[in-house]
Protein backbone atom coordinates (compact mmCIF):
# COMPACT_ATOMS: atom_id res chain seq x y z
CA UNK A 1 0.00 0.00 0.00
CA UNK A 2 0.93 3.63 -0.12
CA UNK A 3 -0.60 6.99 0.64
CA UNK A 4 -2.06 9.17 -2.10
CA UNK A 5 -3.03 12.80 -2.53
CA UNK A 6 -6.57 13.19 -3.85
CA UNK A 7 -8.35 16.01 -5.69
CA UNK A 8 -9.24 17.54 -2.34
CA UNK A 9 -5.78 19.16 -2.66
CA UNK A 10 -6.71 20.92 -5.90
CA UNK A 11 -7.41 24.58 -5.36
CA UNK A 12 -5.54 24.71 -2.04
CA UNK A 13 -2.18 23.03 -2.46
CA UNK A 14 -1.24 23.53 1.13
CA UNK A 15 2.18 21.93 1.50
CA UNK A 16 2.21 21.11 5.22
CA UNK A 17 2.62 17.51 4.05
CA UNK A 18 6.07 18.32 2.71
CA UNK A 19 7.55 19.39 6.04
CA UNK A 20 6.50 16.18 7.80
CA UNK A 21 7.50 13.76 5.05
CA UNK A 22 10.59 11.91 6.30
CA UNK A 23 11.67 10.84 2.82
CA UNK A 24 10.83 13.85 0.62
CA UNK A 25 8.46 11.92 -1.59
CA UNK A 26 6.12 14.82 -2.45
CA UNK A 27 6.05 16.24 -5.96
CA UNK A 28 3.99 19.13 -7.23
CA UNK A 29 2.54 20.86 -10.25
CA UNK A 30 0.44 24.01 -10.54
CA UNK A 31 -2.63 22.25 -9.19
CA UNK A 32 -1.68 19.96 -6.33
CA UNK A 33 0.92 17.69 -4.76
CA UNK A 34 1.53 14.00 -5.48
CA UNK A 35 3.18 11.18 -3.51
CA UNK A 36 5.86 9.07 -5.13
CA UNK A 37 4.80 5.51 -4.22
CA UNK A 38 8.31 4.20 -4.82
CA UNK A 39 9.79 6.34 -2.07
CA UNK A 40 6.89 6.57 0.39
CA UNK A 41 7.62 4.45 3.46
CA UNK A 42 3.96 4.32 4.59
CA UNK A 43 4.53 6.22 7.83
CA UNK A 44 1.22 8.07 7.40
CA UNK A 45 2.58 11.25 8.97
CA UNK A 46 1.23 13.44 6.16
CA UNK A 47 -2.40 12.37 6.65
CA UNK A 48 -3.11 14.43 9.78
CA UNK A 49 -0.81 17.24 8.58
CA UNK A 50 -3.03 18.11 5.58
CA UNK A 51 -5.36 20.99 6.54
CA UNK A 52 -8.07 19.79 4.10
CA UNK A 53 -7.78 16.02 4.55
CA UNK A 54 -6.59 15.45 0.99
CA UNK A 55 -4.27 12.54 1.77
CA UNK A 56 -5.47 9.02 2.34
CA UNK A 57 -4.12 5.52 2.68
CA UNK A 58 -4.67 3.81 -0.67
CA UNK A 59 -6.53 0.91 0.88
CA UNK A 60 -9.05 3.26 2.48
CA UNK A 61 -9.96 5.06 -0.75
CA UNK A 62 -13.56 4.96 -1.92
CA UNK A 63 -14.00 3.15 -5.29
CA UNK A 64 -14.40 6.41 -7.22
CA UNK A 65 -11.16 7.69 -5.67
CA UNK A 66 -9.05 4.65 -6.57
CA UNK A 67 -7.89 6.40 -9.76
CA UNK A 68 -5.70 8.64 -7.63
CA UNK A 69 -3.31 5.78 -6.95
CA UNK A 70 -2.31 5.72 -10.61
CA UNK A 71 -2.46 9.51 -10.99
CA UNK A 72 -0.05 9.95 -8.06
CA UNK A 73 2.32 7.36 -9.51
CA UNK A 74 2.30 8.96 -12.97
CA UNK A 75 2.45 12.59 -11.93
CA UNK A 76 5.17 11.97 -9.32
CA UNK A 77 7.34 10.65 -12.14
CA UNK A 78 6.61 13.70 -14.29
CA UNK A 79 6.94 16.51 -11.74
CA UNK A 80 9.73 17.86 -9.52
CA UNK A 81 10.25 16.94 -5.86
CA UNK A 82 9.29 19.64 -3.41
CA UNK A 83 11.56 19.87 -0.37
CA UNK A 84 10.11 22.74 1.61
CA UNK A 85 6.76 24.33 2.25
CA UNK A 86 5.33 26.83 -0.24
CA UNK A 87 2.58 29.39 0.16
CA UNK A 88 -0.81 27.80 -0.60
CA UNK A 89 -2.68 28.74 -3.77
CA UNK A 90 -4.66 32.00 -3.69
CA UNK A 91 -8.07 31.41 -2.15
CA UNK A 92 -6.94 28.28 -0.28
CA UNK A 93 -7.98 29.55 3.13
CA UNK A 94 -11.41 30.58 1.84
CA UNK A 95 -11.87 27.15 0.27
CA UNK A 96 -10.85 25.48 3.50
CA UNK A 97 -13.40 27.56 5.39
CA UNK A 98 -16.09 26.77 2.83
CA UNK A 99 -15.37 23.08 3.36
CA UNK A 100 -16.10 23.60 7.03
CA UNK A 101 -12.54 22.72 8.06
Amino acid at each position, binding site marked *: *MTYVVTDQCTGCRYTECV*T*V*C*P*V*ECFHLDDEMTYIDPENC*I*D*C*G*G*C*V*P*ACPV*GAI*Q*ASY*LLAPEQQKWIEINRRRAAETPVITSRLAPLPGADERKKALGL
Partner: protein
Amino acid sequence: MTTPQYRVAIVGAGPSGFYAAEALLRAQKDVAVDLFERLPVPYGLVRFGVAPDHPKLKQVTAVFDRIAAMPGFRFVGGVDVGTDISIAALRRAYHAVVLATGASLGREIGLPGEKLAGNRQASDFVGWYNGHPDHRDLAFDFSGERAVVIGHGNVALDVARILLKTPDELRRTDIAAHALEALAESRVRDVHLIGRRGPSETRFSAKELGEFDTLTACDPGIDPADLRADAFSHGDGFDIERKASLDLLERFSRRVATKERRCLFRFHLEPVCFEGGEGVQSAVFRRNCVEGAADECIRIDTKLVFLSVGRRTSPIEGIAYDGSRGVHANRGGRLMVHDRIDHGLYTCGWSKRGPQGTIGTNRACALDTVEKILVDLDSLPSPEPGAIDRLVSSIGRRHGVPLDFDAWRIIDSAEVARGCVNGKPREKFVSVDDMVATARERGIAC
Protein backbone atom coordinates in the same frame (compact mmCIF):
# COMPACT_ATOMS: atom_id res chain seq x y z
CA MET B 1 39.38 23.04 2.55
CA THR B 2 38.27 26.29 4.12
CA THR B 3 37.18 26.57 7.72
CA PRO B 4 33.42 26.88 7.99
CA GLN B 5 32.11 30.10 9.44
CA TYR B 6 29.89 28.35 11.96
CA ARG B 7 30.19 25.01 13.78
CA VAL B 8 27.19 23.31 15.35
CA ALA B 9 27.19 20.17 17.51
CA ILE B 10 24.09 17.98 17.51
CA VAL B 11 23.75 15.38 20.26
CA GLY B 12 21.85 12.26 19.27
CA ALA B 13 21.85 10.57 15.85
CA GLY B 14 18.19 9.67 15.67
CA PRO B 15 15.74 11.11 13.13
CA SER B 16 15.53 14.61 14.65
CA GLY B 17 19.33 14.86 14.91
CA PHE B 18 19.73 13.96 11.24
CA TYR B 19 16.97 16.32 10.14
CA ALA B 20 18.51 19.16 12.16
CA ALA B 21 21.84 18.45 10.45
CA GLU B 22 20.15 18.50 7.06
CA ALA B 23 18.41 21.82 7.74
CA LEU B 24 21.65 23.42 8.95
CA LEU B 25 23.67 22.13 5.99
CA ARG B 26 21.03 23.32 3.52
CA ALA B 27 20.86 26.79 5.05
CA GLN B 28 22.21 29.83 3.24
CA LYS B 29 25.00 30.07 5.81
CA ASP B 30 28.38 28.39 5.94
CA VAL B 31 27.69 25.82 8.67
CA ALA B 32 29.47 22.58 9.52
CA VAL B 33 27.79 19.99 11.72
CA ASP B 34 29.20 17.35 14.06
CA LEU B 35 26.58 14.75 15.00
CA PHE B 36 27.46 13.12 18.34
CA GLU B 37 26.01 9.75 19.28
CA ARG B 38 26.44 7.69 22.43
CA LEU B 39 26.61 4.42 20.46
CA PRO B 40 28.91 3.67 17.54
CA VAL B 41 25.82 3.21 15.36
CA PRO B 42 23.39 5.86 14.08
CA TYR B 43 19.61 6.13 13.42
CA GLY B 44 18.31 6.08 17.02
CA LEU B 45 14.76 4.79 17.25
CA VAL B 46 14.68 3.83 13.57
CA ARG B 47 17.18 1.13 14.51
CA PHE B 48 16.10 0.51 18.10
CA GLY B 49 12.42 1.49 18.17
CA VAL B 50 10.76 0.64 14.86
CA ALA B 51 9.55 -2.95 15.09
CA PRO B 52 11.60 -5.54 13.21
CA ASP B 53 8.54 -6.58 11.19
CA HIS B 54 8.12 -3.03 9.83
CA PRO B 55 11.04 -2.98 7.38
CA LYS B 56 9.53 -0.39 5.06
CA LEU B 57 9.70 2.31 7.73
CA LYS B 58 13.38 1.55 8.15
CA GLN B 59 14.00 2.57 4.55
CA VAL B 60 14.12 6.11 5.90
CA THR B 61 17.76 5.38 6.75
CA ALA B 62 18.56 5.94 3.05
CA VAL B 63 17.62 9.60 3.64
CA PHE B 64 19.88 9.76 6.71
CA ASP B 65 22.73 8.30 4.63
CA ARG B 66 22.22 11.03 2.05
CA ILE B 67 22.38 13.63 4.81
CA ALA B 68 25.59 12.02 6.13
CA ALA B 69 27.12 12.46 2.67
CA MET B 70 26.46 16.23 2.59
CA PRO B 71 29.58 18.42 2.71
CA GLY B 72 30.19 19.70 6.23
CA PHE B 73 28.65 16.67 7.98
CA ARG B 74 30.63 14.54 10.44
CA PHE B 75 29.40 11.65 12.61
CA VAL B 76 31.12 11.27 15.98
CA GLY B 77 29.99 7.98 17.49
CA GLY B 78 30.76 6.35 20.82
CA VAL B 79 30.52 9.54 22.91
CA ASP B 80 28.14 9.95 25.80
CA VAL B 81 27.64 13.69 26.07
CA GLY B 82 27.10 14.60 29.70
CA THR B 83 29.31 11.70 30.83
CA ASP B 84 32.30 11.30 28.48
CA ILE B 85 32.35 14.97 27.66
CA SER B 86 30.47 17.76 29.32
CA ILE B 87 27.95 20.08 27.79
CA ALA B 88 30.27 22.89 28.89
CA ALA B 89 33.12 21.43 26.80
CA LEU B 90 30.84 21.23 23.77
CA ARG B 91 29.71 24.81 24.26
CA ARG B 92 33.30 25.99 24.32
CA ALA B 93 33.98 24.21 21.03
CA TYR B 94 30.86 25.10 19.01
CA HIS B 95 28.77 28.14 18.20
CA ALA B 96 25.63 26.17 19.06
CA VAL B 97 24.74 22.82 20.60
CA VAL B 98 21.47 21.02 19.75
CA LEU B 99 20.19 18.27 22.02
CA ALA B 100 18.29 15.67 20.02
CA THR B 101 18.45 13.06 22.72
CA GLY B 102 14.99 11.55 22.35
CA ALA B 103 12.92 10.08 25.16
CA SER B 104 14.64 6.97 26.39
CA LEU B 105 12.92 6.56 29.75
CA GLY B 106 9.56 4.84 30.17
CA ARG B 107 6.93 6.69 32.19
CA GLU B 108 5.65 5.12 35.37
CA ILE B 109 2.08 5.26 36.62
CA GLY B 110 2.87 5.39 40.33
CA LEU B 111 0.67 2.53 41.54
CA PRO B 112 1.23 0.03 44.37
CA GLY B 113 3.17 -3.01 43.21
CA GLU B 114 4.57 -1.27 40.13
CA LYS B 115 8.11 -2.26 41.11
CA LEU B 116 7.33 -5.98 41.40
CA ALA B 117 9.48 -8.20 39.20
CA GLY B 118 7.63 -8.98 36.01
CA ASN B 119 6.31 -5.44 35.69
CA ARG B 120 8.26 -4.06 32.77
CA GLN B 121 8.49 -0.97 30.64
CA ALA B 122 7.43 -1.54 27.03
CA SER B 123 10.44 0.55 25.96
CA ASP B 124 12.80 -1.97 27.62
CA PHE B 125 11.18 -4.83 25.72
CA VAL B 126 11.34 -2.87 22.46
CA GLY B 127 15.04 -2.11 23.04
CA TRP B 128 15.64 -5.77 23.88
CA TYR B 129 14.07 -7.28 20.77
CA ASN B 130 15.74 -4.61 18.65
CA GLY B 131 19.20 -5.43 20.02
CA HIS B 132 19.92 -2.20 21.91
CA PRO B 133 23.18 -2.69 23.84
CA ASP B 134 21.58 -1.22 27.00
CA HIS B 135 18.81 -3.82 26.95
CA ARG B 136 20.44 -6.95 25.55
CA ASP B 137 21.01 -8.51 28.97
CA LEU B 138 17.42 -8.13 30.13
CA ALA B 139 15.43 -11.30 30.71
CA PHE B 140 11.67 -11.58 30.35
CA ASP B 141 9.62 -14.34 31.90
CA PHE B 142 7.62 -15.85 29.05
CA SER B 143 6.71 -18.97 31.07
CA GLY B 144 3.12 -17.84 31.75
CA GLU B 145 0.36 -18.13 29.18
CA ARG B 146 -0.92 -14.59 29.68
CA ALA B 147 0.73 -11.19 29.34
CA VAL B 148 -0.80 -7.77 29.97
CA VAL B 149 0.09 -4.63 28.03
CA ILE B 150 -1.17 -1.34 29.50
CA GLY B 151 -1.57 1.46 26.98
CA HIS B 152 -3.52 1.93 23.76
CA GLY B 153 -0.96 3.36 21.36
CA ASN B 154 1.11 1.93 18.54
CA VAL B 155 3.98 0.89 20.82
CA ALA B 156 1.54 -1.27 22.79
CA LEU B 157 0.50 -2.83 19.48
CA ASP B 158 4.15 -3.53 18.64
CA VAL B 159 4.69 -5.24 21.99
CA ALA B 160 1.56 -7.38 21.65
CA ARG B 161 2.31 -8.32 18.05
CA ILE B 162 5.90 -9.35 18.75
CA LEU B 163 4.69 -11.44 21.71
CA LEU B 164 2.04 -13.15 19.57
CA LYS B 165 3.78 -13.71 16.28
CA THR B 166 5.18 -17.17 15.61
CA PRO B 167 8.95 -17.64 15.30
CA ASP B 168 8.42 -18.17 11.58
CA GLU B 169 6.77 -14.77 11.28
CA LEU B 170 9.82 -13.12 12.89
CA ARG B 171 12.67 -15.27 11.59
CA ARG B 172 13.29 -13.24 8.42
CA THR B 173 13.27 -9.85 10.17
CA ASP B 174 16.20 -8.05 11.80
CA ILE B 175 14.99 -9.01 15.29
CA ALA B 176 17.92 -9.62 17.65
CA ALA B 177 18.97 -13.29 17.74
CA HIS B 178 18.63 -13.46 21.54
CA ALA B 179 15.03 -12.22 21.29
CA LEU B 180 14.07 -14.64 18.54
CA GLU B 181 15.49 -17.50 20.56
CA ALA B 182 13.69 -16.50 23.78
CA LEU B 183 10.38 -15.77 22.02
CA ALA B 184 10.53 -19.15 20.25
CA GLU B 185 10.35 -20.74 23.71
CA SER B 186 7.62 -18.39 24.93
CA ARG B 187 4.44 -19.93 26.36
CA VAL B 188 2.51 -16.67 26.06
CA ARG B 189 -0.75 -17.35 24.21
CA ASP B 190 -2.98 -14.59 25.45
CA VAL B 191 -2.21 -10.88 25.49
CA HIS B 192 -4.59 -8.41 27.13
CA LEU B 193 -4.12 -4.98 25.62
CA ILE B 194 -5.62 -2.61 28.15
CA GLY B 195 -6.77 0.99 27.95
CA ARG B 196 -8.61 3.33 30.27
CA ARG B 197 -10.94 4.65 27.62
CA GLY B 198 -13.23 3.25 24.94
CA PRO B 199 -12.68 2.01 21.38
CA SER B 200 -13.23 5.47 19.88
CA GLU B 201 -10.47 6.99 22.01
CA THR B 202 -7.44 4.84 21.27
CA ARG B 203 -4.26 6.15 19.66
CA PHE B 204 -3.89 3.09 17.41
CA SER B 205 -3.29 3.77 13.75
CA ALA B 206 -5.57 1.83 11.42
CA LYS B 207 -2.72 0.32 9.46
CA GLU B 208 -1.07 -1.17 12.54
CA LEU B 209 -4.37 -2.33 13.98
CA GLY B 210 -5.12 -4.02 10.68
CA GLU B 211 -2.02 -6.19 11.04
CA PHE B 212 -3.82 -8.11 13.80
CA ASP B 213 -6.30 -9.29 11.17
CA THR B 214 -3.63 -11.26 9.36
CA LEU B 215 -1.49 -12.87 12.05
CA THR B 216 -0.74 -16.55 11.41
CA ALA B 217 -1.62 -17.96 14.82
CA CYS B 218 -3.49 -15.21 16.60
CA ASP B 219 -7.05 -13.89 16.58
CA PRO B 220 -7.82 -10.37 17.80
CA GLY B 221 -10.85 -10.17 20.07
CA ILE B 222 -12.82 -7.94 22.41
CA ASP B 223 -14.54 -8.78 25.69
CA PRO B 224 -18.13 -7.47 25.33
CA ALA B 225 -18.23 -6.80 29.07
CA ASP B 226 -15.65 -4.03 28.52
CA LEU B 227 -17.91 -2.09 26.17
CA ARG B 228 -20.35 0.71 26.83
CA ALA B 229 -23.49 1.15 24.75
CA ASP B 230 -22.77 2.39 21.21
CA ALA B 231 -19.10 1.62 21.72
CA PHE B 232 -18.34 1.73 18.01
CA SER B 233 -20.34 4.76 16.97
CA HIS B 234 -18.46 7.89 16.09
CA GLY B 235 -19.25 11.55 15.74
CA ASP B 236 -18.90 13.73 12.65
CA GLY B 237 -15.44 14.85 13.73
CA PHE B 238 -13.92 11.47 12.90
CA ASP B 239 -11.56 11.38 9.93
CA ILE B 240 -11.23 8.38 7.64
CA GLU B 241 -8.24 7.02 9.54
CA ARG B 242 -10.02 7.05 12.92
CA LYS B 243 -13.17 5.59 11.40
CA ALA B 244 -11.07 2.82 9.91
CA SER B 245 -9.54 2.04 13.34
CA LEU B 246 -12.96 1.93 14.93
CA ASP B 247 -14.36 -0.27 12.16
CA LEU B 248 -11.49 -2.70 12.68
CA LEU B 249 -12.15 -2.88 16.41
CA GLU B 250 -15.83 -3.44 15.72
CA ARG B 251 -14.88 -6.29 13.39
CA PHE B 252 -12.58 -7.75 16.05
CA SER B 253 -15.51 -7.73 18.49
CA ARG B 254 -17.50 -10.03 16.19
CA ARG B 255 -14.65 -12.38 15.41
CA VAL B 256 -14.86 -16.02 16.45
CA ALA B 257 -11.50 -17.16 17.78
CA THR B 258 -10.12 -20.27 16.07
CA LYS B 259 -6.37 -19.82 16.40
CA GLU B 260 -4.20 -20.86 19.30
CA ARG B 261 -3.20 -17.34 20.34
CA ARG B 262 -5.36 -14.37 21.15
CA CYS B 263 -4.96 -10.64 21.50
CA LEU B 264 -7.78 -9.29 23.61
CA PHE B 265 -8.36 -5.54 23.24
CA ARG B 266 -9.78 -4.36 26.55
CA PHE B 267 -11.43 -1.03 27.37
CA HIS B 268 -12.51 1.16 30.27
CA LEU B 269 -10.06 -0.50 32.64
CA GLU B 270 -8.27 1.85 35.02
CA PRO B 271 -5.17 0.28 36.61
CA VAL B 272 -5.38 0.16 40.42
CA CYS B 273 -2.45 -1.94 41.63
CA PHE B 274 -0.30 -4.96 40.99
CA GLU B 275 -0.37 -7.89 43.38
CA GLY B 276 2.22 -10.54 43.99
CA GLY B 277 4.99 -11.78 46.21
CA GLU B 278 8.45 -12.00 44.70
CA GLY B 279 7.03 -11.15 41.32
CA VAL B 280 3.78 -9.81 39.96
CA GLN B 281 0.95 -12.34 39.99
CA SER B 282 -1.99 -10.23 38.99
CA ALA B 283 -2.90 -6.78 37.75
CA VAL B 284 -5.98 -5.17 39.27
CA PHE B 285 -8.22 -2.74 37.39
CA ARG B 286 -11.37 -0.75 38.00
CA ARG B 287 -13.97 -1.09 35.27
CA ASN B 288 -16.76 1.34 34.67
CA CYS B 289 -18.84 0.54 31.64
CA VAL B 290 -22.17 1.90 32.80
CA GLU B 291 -22.53 5.60 33.59
CA GLY B 292 -23.52 6.09 37.21
CA ALA B 293 -23.00 2.45 38.18
CA ALA B 294 -20.48 1.34 40.79
CA ASP B 295 -17.01 0.42 39.55
CA GLU B 296 -16.26 -3.22 39.13
CA CYS B 297 -12.96 -4.75 40.25
CA ILE B 298 -11.21 -6.79 37.57
CA ARG B 299 -8.23 -8.94 38.46
CA ILE B 300 -6.14 -10.39 35.65
CA ASP B 301 -3.67 -13.11 36.62
CA THR B 302 -0.34 -12.69 34.88
CA LYS B 303 3.39 -12.87 35.51
CA LEU B 304 4.27 -10.38 32.82
CA VAL B 305 3.03 -6.79 32.51
CA PHE B 306 4.26 -4.16 30.07
CA LEU B 307 3.66 -0.49 30.75
CA SER B 308 3.28 1.46 27.54
CA VAL B 309 2.01 4.79 28.82
CA GLY B 310 4.59 7.17 27.40
CA ARG B 311 8.24 8.07 27.58
CA ARG B 312 10.32 10.94 28.80
CA THR B 313 13.70 12.42 28.05
CA SER B 314 16.67 11.34 30.10
CA PRO B 315 17.94 14.42 31.99
CA ILE B 316 21.46 15.61 31.19
CA GLU B 317 23.86 17.05 33.76
CA GLY B 318 23.91 20.82 33.43
CA ILE B 319 20.66 21.09 31.43
CA ALA B 320 17.42 22.32 33.03
CA TYR B 321 14.67 19.71 32.95
CA ASP B 322 10.95 20.23 32.51
CA GLY B 323 9.61 17.51 34.79
CA SER B 324 5.96 17.99 33.90
CA ARG B 325 6.54 17.56 30.16
CA GLY B 326 9.44 15.14 30.57
CA VAL B 327 11.71 17.09 28.18
CA HIS B 328 14.69 19.44 28.33
CA ALA B 329 13.26 22.78 29.52
CA ASN B 330 12.77 24.76 26.31
CA ARG B 331 10.70 27.39 24.62
CA GLY B 332 10.15 26.52 20.95
CA GLY B 333 13.48 24.68 20.83
CA ARG B 334 15.63 27.25 22.67
CA LEU B 335 16.78 25.80 25.99
CA MET B 336 15.70 27.69 29.08
CA VAL B 337 17.29 28.08 32.47
CA HIS B 338 15.34 29.82 35.25
CA ASP B 339 12.85 31.19 32.69
CA ARG B 340 15.60 32.76 30.60
CA ILE B 341 17.03 31.60 27.28
CA ASP B 342 20.26 29.64 27.68
CA HIS B 343 22.00 31.15 24.65
CA GLY B 344 23.58 28.72 22.22
CA LEU B 345 21.72 25.67 23.48
CA TYR B 346 18.80 24.14 21.57
CA THR B 347 16.72 21.00 21.39
CA CYS B 348 14.60 19.23 18.79
CA GLY B 349 12.58 16.06 18.36
CA TRP B 350 11.18 14.14 21.31
CA SER B 351 13.53 15.84 23.78
CA LYS B 352 11.88 19.14 22.74
CA ARG B 353 8.19 18.30 22.40
CA GLY B 354 7.74 14.84 23.94
CA PRO B 355 7.13 11.49 22.26
CA GLN B 356 4.49 12.30 19.65
CA GLY B 357 4.04 11.99 15.94
CA THR B 358 5.64 9.94 13.22
CA ILE B 359 9.26 9.93 12.04
CA GLY B 360 8.64 12.90 9.75
CA THR B 361 7.12 15.01 12.53
CA ASN B 362 10.71 15.29 13.72
CA ARG B 363 11.67 16.83 10.40
CA ALA B 364 9.23 19.71 10.84
CA CYS B 365 10.30 19.98 14.48
CA ALA B 366 14.02 20.10 13.62
CA LEU B 367 13.40 22.68 10.89
CA ASP B 368 11.64 24.86 13.42
CA THR B 369 14.58 24.68 15.85
CA VAL B 370 17.11 25.30 13.08
CA GLU B 371 15.23 28.44 11.99
CA LYS B 372 15.88 29.79 15.48
CA ILE B 373 19.55 28.79 15.40
CA LEU B 374 20.00 30.59 12.09
CA VAL B 375 18.45 33.73 13.55
CA ASP B 376 20.75 33.55 16.60
CA LEU B 377 24.04 32.41 15.01
CA ASP B 378 25.59 35.82 14.42
CA SER B 379 24.98 36.83 18.01
CA LEU B 380 26.57 33.71 19.54
CA PRO B 381 30.18 33.78 20.77
CA SER B 382 32.78 32.12 18.56
CA PRO B 383 34.29 28.89 19.85
CA GLU B 384 37.86 28.52 21.05
CA PRO B 385 40.16 27.91 18.07
CA GLY B 386 41.27 24.27 17.82
CA ALA B 387 38.85 23.13 20.52
CA ILE B 388 36.86 20.91 18.17
CA ASP B 389 39.89 19.11 16.76
CA ARG B 390 41.22 18.44 20.27
CA LEU B 391 37.81 17.18 21.35
CA VAL B 392 37.22 14.85 18.40
CA SER B 393 40.76 13.44 18.34
CA SER B 394 40.60 12.69 22.08
CA ILE B 395 37.36 10.77 21.44
CA GLY B 396 38.98 8.79 18.62
CA ARG B 397 41.87 7.77 20.87
CA ARG B 398 39.48 6.39 23.47
CA HIS B 399 38.17 3.62 21.21
CA GLY B 400 41.37 3.05 19.25
CA VAL B 401 39.49 3.89 16.06
CA PRO B 402 37.47 6.92 15.01
CA LEU B 403 33.82 5.90 15.20
CA ASP B 404 32.82 8.05 12.25
CA PHE B 405 30.35 7.31 9.45
CA ASP B 406 32.93 5.18 7.62
CA ALA B 407 33.24 3.05 10.75
CA TRP B 408 29.45 2.71 10.78
CA ARG B 409 29.51 1.60 7.14
CA ILE B 410 31.95 -1.15 8.11
CA ILE B 411 29.74 -2.22 11.02
CA ASP B 412 26.70 -2.01 8.74
CA SER B 413 28.24 -4.27 6.07
CA ALA B 414 29.31 -6.78 8.71
CA GLU B 415 25.79 -6.88 10.16
CA VAL B 416 24.23 -7.38 6.75
CA ALA B 417 26.68 -10.21 6.01
CA ARG B 418 25.91 -11.87 9.37
CA GLY B 419 22.18 -11.62 8.65
CA CYS B 420 22.52 -13.01 5.14
CA VAL B 421 23.63 -16.37 6.53
CA ASN B 422 20.26 -16.75 8.28
CA GLY B 423 18.08 -15.10 5.67
CA LYS B 424 17.74 -11.92 7.73
CA PRO B 425 18.24 -8.38 6.44
CA ARG B 426 20.88 -7.97 9.14
CA GLU B 427 22.07 -9.50 12.38
CA LYS B 428 22.80 -6.56 14.65
CA PHE B 429 25.79 -6.42 16.94
CA VAL B 430 24.27 -6.05 20.37
CA SER B 431 27.34 -4.96 22.30
CA VAL B 432 29.34 -1.78 21.91
CA ASP B 433 32.56 -3.80 22.23
CA ASP B 434 31.60 -5.94 19.23
CA MET B 435 30.69 -2.85 17.21
CA VAL B 436 34.02 -1.19 18.03
CA ALA B 437 36.01 -4.38 17.43
CA THR B 438 34.36 -4.79 14.02
CA ALA B 439 35.15 -1.20 13.04
CA ARG B 440 38.74 -1.64 14.27
CA GLU B 441 39.47 -4.99 12.60
CA ARG B 442 37.89 -4.13 9.28
CA GLY B 443 39.50 -0.71 9.41
CA ILE B 444 42.92 -2.36 9.65
CA ALA B 445 42.05 -4.92 6.97
CA CYS B 446 41.06 -2.13 4.58
